[in-house]
């Protein structure tokens, strides 16, 4: 039932067809960039770039390793952004397990940007800090329109080497484990990423090195503040109602008692 994508970094050739396919399918404009001396481009995720291949150069005992990894929303099961989003613009789809974002429900508070353990969401480019304008720019939606019609996401479709595969999450985990077993012979650090992290990611990775080498957090965790915020809110609402009810009752009781006293005084 739960769908996922598996990215096998050892099969990626860094062609960035997935980036282009993503832009094409979602009708996102190209970003004007300058050459920074690397094939990596654009330099960062943005409101118009929802997925990006990160290029890493690793010096492994004198030999150069050129590592590619695809960065986008990881579609966590226990998603911090869904926990903190005050307007319900970010939601977890109960059927597929993806984290969906509805831009027309966003207030632009930017909590998702600061709470995301993978640092994925980005604000609109023309956002004004002083006035607090601008919304969350948008993020990978797992090609929800395609997937719900039984087609694989655009990036998986475009991948020429089969580095990105789409399917049932359970199948992909099995596949990924097998691939890791094969890789272990040559790459002792090979691992499957996303199986248990944050309740299970819907973007799985087969890494040949430790995740931190690819700029992924080793142990991504739900921020403690993200867990406490919903609790805090309900506590606050409760306390507010209690304070209001308490002080109103006190006022009413006081008035009743004072009227009674007055009556007694008159009688005496």
């Amino acid at each position: 039932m739960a769908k996922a994508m598996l990215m096998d970094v050892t099969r990626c050739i860094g062609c960035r067809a997935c980036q282009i396919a993503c832009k094409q399918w979602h009708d996102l404009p190209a970003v004007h960039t300058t050459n920074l001396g690397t094939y990596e481009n654009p330099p960062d995720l943005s409101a118009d770039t929802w997925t990006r291949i990160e290029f890493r150069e690793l010096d492994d005992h004198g030999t150069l390793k050129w590592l590619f990894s695809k960065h986008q929303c990881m579609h966590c099961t226990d998603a911090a952004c869904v926990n903190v989003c005050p307007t319900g613009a970010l939601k977890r789809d109960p059927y597929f397990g993806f984290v969906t974002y509805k831009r027309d429900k966003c207030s632009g508070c930017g909590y998702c940007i600061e709470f995301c353990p993978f640092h994925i969401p980005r604000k609109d480019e023309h956002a004004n800090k002083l006035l607090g304008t601008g919304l969350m720019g948008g993020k990978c939606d797992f090609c929800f329109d395609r997937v719900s019609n039984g087609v694989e996401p655009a990036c998986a479709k475009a991948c020429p080497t089969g580095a990105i595969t789409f399917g049932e999450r359970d199948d992909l985990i099995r596949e990924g484990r097998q691939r890791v077993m094969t890789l272990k012979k040559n790459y002792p650090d090979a691992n499957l990423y996303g199986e248990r992290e944050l309740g299970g990611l819907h973007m799985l990775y087969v890494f040949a090195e430790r995740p931190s080498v690819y700029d992924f957090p080793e142990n991504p965790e739900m921020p403690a503040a993200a867990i406490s915020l919903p609790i805090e809110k309900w506590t606050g609402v409760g306390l507010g109602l209690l304070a209001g009810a308490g002080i109103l009752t006190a006022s009413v009781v006081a008035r009743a008692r004072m009227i009674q006293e007055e009556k007694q005084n008159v009688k005496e």
Partner: protein
Amino acid sequence: MSKNKTEKGFWAAIFPTIGSVIGTFLYDYFFDDPKRPGIMRFSFPARTLHWVTAVLIILLGFTGLILFVPGWGTIAVAGWTRIIHRICVYIFSVVLLLYFVTYRKNCLDYIKESFTWTREDLGWLRAAVDYYLGGEESKMPPQGRINPGQKIWQLITILCGAIFFITGAIMTFAKGAVAPGVFQWCVFTHDIAFIIGGCMLIVHVVLGALHPRMSESLRSMITGKISVQYAKSHYGKWYEKISKKQA
């Protein structure tokens, strides 16, 4: 974000603010008889500050509350309340700064008053529960310019205000510059201050406007004056001091 929306947010913040100043002013000069007997309790600048901050706090509180109450968030969609929240804070900062520069003594007294606590105050607070539930008024020990209950409220305004300003400034200006963890706990602390301040604000409003023991409280904040009898019964020590000064 359209410019139009920014403008709307700006006016939504600035109209009530200017309105509250003009309102206080108009009432003071046209509807209040300056010869009306009574003791001056709140000066005109103090009252103006009170009503300006009241309006700003209502606007800030409402635009914050809709993010706070689960399910009300949809009101904030497209971020128009965020603009109001920001602009109100900027006006608030300017108003507070101007007031501090112009009436420094008032401000310092206010702070000093809030942080001065004596053993008597605790005794008053112990007796206050019965008092606010309509108990015997004469049992309460005579008070200075403000009673310990009001002192708590002043303390809350200072402490919560400081928390609001500091965490809010970090969230507005240092977003992205500080570690995400700092931002996260700023959101949390801002909310805690909102809970404490909000609950106390409810108590403050109901006590000031509705409670039968505080019968002249609201009027004194509008006209500035309280009757001699009210001053004697509620702020005995302060009344003595004032009458000595005048004599």
